[in-house]
């Protein structure tokens, strides 16, 4: 199903942006985690400051409780929301939508599709590159996060919650990747969709943030895929929840399958 010639070319085409995104996100993670020791050092003063900061603002920043900020994992998880869940999702959706669509708006589709390669092979090869890049970004960011936790830790590291939040982050990125693909195949007049993808993710993130601030845990917040991730890493019952994994994977597969069906019948207008 995957055409190795196209896969190799597409990988080379995208590796530079993947490296750039990975380096940027990893640097942000490492730099932010390097502040953790200072946070511990000035615990009293920060507690004083934090008391006058509305709890809503803390929640908006990703902290479930005031004391989360003084836990290495809590500190990491709050930053992970911004760096990997938000930025990683933007990368995933922009990559996966443009990887298909750029052949059309850059007018190279006519060349590619006159080769002996089926639409299924084009779709599978390009998606495989997107999946590999998203997985690589998550792996590199996860390793960086883990190393930064070890380097800047204040006590023992509990690996289990770290692995769970890393997996959820990857699944969230994967979902947005699949969303990007369906956006790409549904566009009739080809044009770059970067701004649309970034805008859509920011809207979802805004809904998620509002739902955290207002304490609304019900239906409204669940409009946003960010809400589908359990971020309470410091809770004792934090564990793998099958329904969340099934939800993300199921939707990603469903969107990818639907996208393939649409792509098979799509007029390639260049």
């Amino acid at each position: 199903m995957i055409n190795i010639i196209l896969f190799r070319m597409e990988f080379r085409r995208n590796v530079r942006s993947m490296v750039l995104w990975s380096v940027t996100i990893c640097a942000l993670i490492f730099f932010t985690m390097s502040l953790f020791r200072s946070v511990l050092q000035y615990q009293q003063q920060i507690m004083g400051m934090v008391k006058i900061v509305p709890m809503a603002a803390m929640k908006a920043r990703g902290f479930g409780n005031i004391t989360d900020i003084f836990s290495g994992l809590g500190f990491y998880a709050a930053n992970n929301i911004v760096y990997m869940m938000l930025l990683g999702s933007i990368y995933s959706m922009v990559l996966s939508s443009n990887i298909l669509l750029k052949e059309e708006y850059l007018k190279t589709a006519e060349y590619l599709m006159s080769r002996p390669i089926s639409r299924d092979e084009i779709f599978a090869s390009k998606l495989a590159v997107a999946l590999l890049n998203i997985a690589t970004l998550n792996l590199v960011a996860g390793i960086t996060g883990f190393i930064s936790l070890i380097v800047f830790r204040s006590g023992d590291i509990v690996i289990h919650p770290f692995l769970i939040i890393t997996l959820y982050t990857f699944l969230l990125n994967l979902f947005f990747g699949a969303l990007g693909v369906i956006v790409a195949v549904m566009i009739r007049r080809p044009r770059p969709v970067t701004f649309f993808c970034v805008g859509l993710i920011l809207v979802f993130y805004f809904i998620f943030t509002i739902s955290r601030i207002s304490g609304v845990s019900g239906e409204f917040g669940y409009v946003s895929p960010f809400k589908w991730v359990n971020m309470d890493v410091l809770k004792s019952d934090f564990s793998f929840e099958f329904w969340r994994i099934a939800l993300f994977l199921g939707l990603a597969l469903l969107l990818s399958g639907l996208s393939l069906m649409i792509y098979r019948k799509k007029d390639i207008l260049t």
Partner: protein
Amino acid sequence: MASNIIEISHLSKYYGHSRGIEDVSLDVGQGEFFGFIGPNGAGKSTTIRILLNLIFPSSGSARIFGLDVLRDSKKIRGRLGYVPSDANLYDKMKVHEFLSFGAAFYGGNKSEDRIRELAGILDLNLERRITELSTGNKKKVNIIQALVHKPELLILDEPTSGLDPLIQSKLFGLLTEENKRGTTVFFSSHILSDVQALCRRVAIVKEGRIVKSDEIAVLREKQLKKVRILFADEGTSGNFHIPGMASILSVSPKTLEFMFSGDINELTGHLSGLRLENLSIEEPPLEEIFLHYYQ
């Protein structure tokens, strides 16, 4: 008659409410050099894009090598070469890298020699980046990528646009050689002199429909004549009329030039009662046949 390589039957394509092509039917035989002519927007590229399965027909069917263009498009594309009219290439690649990438889809390991041979004929530098190339040189790259795997069928959409006369002449030589080796050529263009120089048979497309399809020689010899009459008396030309008189090309008080598709004996019989200074009956160039169908 050799077996057909392309068979198009009642093919139509609509983009929403706007017309792409309507009820197009034509056959192209094995080894033919077939011209597909019409002005921009007539439906030539739409027809070709359906043949390549880039777009889907609204109705009708098309077969290449006896295979359905929708079901067997991958198999078909493995045996044809296509020169698009204005498609872009992967700009960041070098010419050689791009051509090797394209050739790799067809398998085999003889592409290197063939790339160098074709680049030599068309005078193309393989070491330059595609983004640095002029429109004409990009067109050369497009021509080479279509020929590199020695296809059984070549589909060319406006292949001469952007090429200087010298390279055009080399391209025509290359296409003629390929055709002699048995490659069927489907040559789409609005430049009639190109079609006339190369093709034996043509189809004329007008507003999405095929208005005429025949051998150029037949169109010129049997069906249409260009008649030029110089009358002895002024004013005769304005009143002259005969069945079969098609489009009038020029008229003045003493001269009349028109395309004639009727019986030549009837014409001479009609003229015998008139005083003439001169009369010429010629086979018209393709351009005038084309204009006749467009008026």
